[in-house]
């Protein structure tokens, strides 16, 4: 009844190869989880915190379209950013959203607004989304 380890004579040796394997697997794991989450966060706006918000539905990911609303301190209003482009005239967004809805009937608009944005601005963008015939809205929030 020899106690495990090697089975050969002498002291069990420290195996470097399996340790490197495990290290690399851990490394790849942590690299993937950090980079995957960082990509989703726009650093120019601070999302409101909501610890109980639901995890985003992965099946709906391909139907989601993000509408960013940064906070403009000078005017105390929201700055609408779509596809990294600042929209000065919000009325231009309506035909754009209508086309998006035509292309994808299951379209879900994710409103990614800064926590400091006045609620009136959120209602304004919701009006545009509603006018475009989109009923599925989701409000993005950070877990912490």
């Amino acid at each position, binding site marked *: 009844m020899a106690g495990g380890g090697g089975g050969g004579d002498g002291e069990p040796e420290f195996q470097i190869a399996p*340790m490197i394997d495990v290290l690399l697997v851990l490394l790849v794991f942590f690299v993937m989880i950090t980079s995957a989450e960082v990509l989703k966060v726009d650093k120019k706006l601070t999302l409101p*915190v909501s610890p109980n918000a639901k995890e985003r539905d992965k099946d709906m990911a391909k139907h989601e379209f993000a509408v960013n609303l940064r906070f403009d301190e000078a005017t105390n209003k929201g700055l609408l950013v779509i596809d990294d482009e600042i929209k000065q005239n919000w009325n231009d967004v309506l035909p754009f959203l209508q086309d998006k809805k035509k292309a994808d009937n299951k379209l879900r608009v*994710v409103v990614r607004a800064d926590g400091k*944005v006045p609620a009136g601005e959120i209602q304004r963008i919701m009006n545009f989304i509603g006018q475009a015939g989109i009923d599925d809205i*989701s409000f*993005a929030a950070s877990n912490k």
Partner: protein
Amino acid sequence: MKKRSHKRKQSSEVNLGFQIAPMIDVVFVILLYFMVMAGDIQVENAHNTKLPGTQEETKEPVNLPDEIAIRIEDDGQVYLNDDPLDSPENKALPELAGSLKQLRESSDNSKSTVLVTIYANELAKYQRVIEVLDALTRAKISNVTFQAGSPD
């Protein structure tokens, strides 16, 4: 010239083989970096809602929902059917969540649904609206609509 030949001799003696120890050092440092970063990750979650008036109608008879109004003032004070709950500084909104849970349970017992309408003032912060949505999620209420301006 003498010096140069001495140098050449030294470099030829250096072992250029693969060094495992420094590689493990580097891998450990990178691993530690990503492990620390992983603890600080911000995950983007969401509150989903459907806009009213765009949902498909059903032919089955539906019990009329119990309507609840939540008002959010500019300073962050939250009112549930005109009753002020929690202080504007309280982000967790425990009183609101507790009251909503009781209302939802009584509606479940009478086999009706709860419909919450959020009346957020123009200058109320969006963060406060999300805190109210968070309290609604804790109370397991999913029928939420938004209204511009106050209910009066």
